[in-house]
């Protein structure tokens, strides 16, 4: 479960999140929709612990624990996963080597025994097959020279292996053609479970045809402006965000 309470975040002198409050229950898929420049990516980075953001007020609770003072790797080990909008290319680090390092770092952090290579290989192969990630991709340096679709599939592959309790998908649909969108969405859907929550950040309704949300939240001007069910996404697709922007400006 993810609880965001009255979150205020600034970068330099500019306040970007202005008292954002949102709860995603166990098993829930919550979608955040909103126009560009409204702080959606800031929200995902702040939850994951990126440097450069000042949290001036508020809390983020992961399964009841405030994680704002934890380092990014500690948040990950406690079950948080951020699927990046722009997965970073890391030349020189083989994908398989990276997967082994991250899986075992998280296990060590939780006091669990490390996975041995054969066990790890089997898990990776099984998960990769489901997502159409080729063995050749696993041998390449992480995300290096991957197409947009390959990068997003790699994000979902990592999520499947790391088994987080909260997954944040930041604009996972950006840069995907319709076939890749389907594969990635199916990958996410198979990970849905009563013990896992998702926060799906997008500005198009299209992704939500594939990943059906339980709740939809409209974010604008650094706050949640309105919450509702899946029908809210359809309404936004029809009317756009102008009501929310106009409201703020008024």
């Amino acid at each position, binding site marked *: 479960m993810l609880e965001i309470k009255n979150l205020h975040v600034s970068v330099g002198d500019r306040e970007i999140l202005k008292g954002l409050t949102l709860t995603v229950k166990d098993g829930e898929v919550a979608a955040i929709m909103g126009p560009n420049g409204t702080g959606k990516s800031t929200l995902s980075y702040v939850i*994951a*612990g*990126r*440097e450069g953001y000042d949290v001036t007020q508020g809390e983020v609770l992961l399964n009841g624990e405030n994680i704002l003072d934890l*380092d*990014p*790797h500690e*948040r*990950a*080990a406690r079950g948080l996963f*951020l699927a*990046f909008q722009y*997965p*970073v290319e*890391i*030349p*020189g*680090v083989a994908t398989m080597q*990276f997967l082994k*390092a*991250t*899986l075992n*770092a*998280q296990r060590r*952090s939780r006091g669990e025994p490390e996975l041995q290579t054969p066990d790890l290989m089997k898990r990776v192969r099984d998960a990769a097959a489901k997502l159409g990630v080729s063995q050749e991709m696993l041998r390449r*340096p992480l995300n290096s020279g991957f197409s947009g679709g390959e990068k997003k599939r790699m994000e979902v592959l*990592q999520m499947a292996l*790391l088994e987080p309790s909260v997954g944040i998908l930041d604009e996972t649909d950006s840069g995907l053609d319709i076939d890749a969108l389907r594969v990635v969405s199916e990958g996410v859907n198979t990970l849905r479970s009563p013990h896992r929550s998702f926060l799906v950040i997008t500005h198009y309704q299209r992704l939500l045809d594939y990943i059906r949300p339980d709740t939809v939240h409209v974010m604008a001007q650094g706050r949640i402006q309105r919450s509702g069910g899946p029908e809210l996404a359809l309404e936004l697709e029809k009317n756009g965000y102008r009501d929310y922007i106009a409201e703020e400006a008024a």
Partner: protein
Amino acid sequence: MINLSNEADAVYAAQFETMRDSGAAQRRTDAYRAFAARGLPNRRVESWHYTDLKAALTKPAPLATTHSVTHALARTHDAVRLVMVDGKLRPDLSDLDTLPAGVRMQCLQEALASAGPTVTATLWPDNADDAAIALNGALMQNGLVVTVAPGAEAPRPLELITLVSGNEPQAVFTRSALIVGAGAHIRIIETHGVLDAGTEAASLAGAQLNHVLTMRLDADAKVDLLTNVAGFGETSVSVVSLIAHLDARARLNAHQLIEGGGLLRRQIFAALDGEHAHAAFNGVTLARARQHADTTLVVDHRQPHGESHERFRTILDGQAVGVFQGKIIVRSAAQKTDGVMQSKAILLSDGATMNNKPELEIFADDVKCGHGATCGRLDRDQLFYLMARGLPRGEAESLLLAAFANEAMAGIEDEALRDFFEARIGAWLTGRAGA
């Protein structure tokens, strides 16, 4: 006119007197005069602008005379080993009986006494006008002269180990030569360090090593050279030089790992003297604390169709100072030269300094040459990505730094040797992350 204006020069003058009659008296005298006319290089000498050897050697240590007693030396490579400690060949630590067929080894003293024209030309090359090398020529105590017969193919690498024992400050001057006959192939591992490195005595003793390896590759010869400089204490001063001559179609594939310690200068002078000669120089330098690590390289293309590739990576932490000076010269005769030089540095702290100076001097008109030099910090996006996946900062940094450094080691053809170098880089990074 010999200038004895300071204490260091006076010490070297006295040391030269003791070495004058240790073989090749005329060559030594010429070398000493060349040195004394200039003195130790300081910042006013352009090629030493970033490394002030004169300031570092105000008190030259006495020439090494104490040769430590029998000492076990861990074997790190499957190689035929030749060990010098404090400027003296140590048969007890060397594999003199198992030299590969076609490989002959003489001590420098023997070689000087019976030197033929090839040995003489190799030991006294014409393409390294440098005061530190001149000083080495005047004071060289010993060395190994290795000859590989034409066409020989040495199945195991030859490991040349030069150690300074760390009991008290002492200066070691060694000069070795490698003469590789036409079409022969040999792998050489050069290891320079301190006996009992890591002990308090070794780090305080302040070893002063001036080593020169001269190399001559006849037509179609091939040498894989791996150089590791490691373990020097914080008060040590080391200059480790390589001077190479390549004849037609000869190939030199060189990799070096320089692990900082005190003031350290690696200098390479390579002359491509035959058509289609090919030289690759790759290196990783790791330095921390107040270490000073300089790599200076001059590649001189003298004949057409030569190729040279240089790829260097430097990682600096603490207050360390790194230097990379790389100069590619393309003479007017050297048409169709292909030369690419790249030096990249990552600075891990605000106190570290990198001096990156690539240079091209091109006198031919039909060549393909380029260079690139960068200095930066670790990429924050990459670091955050790895941490968001569960890697603690130190581990994430080490993973990225290893990837950065290993790029320069990718061309080591022998997998076991490549693994060895990568493991040493990994150990340095782990030591840093744990510190």
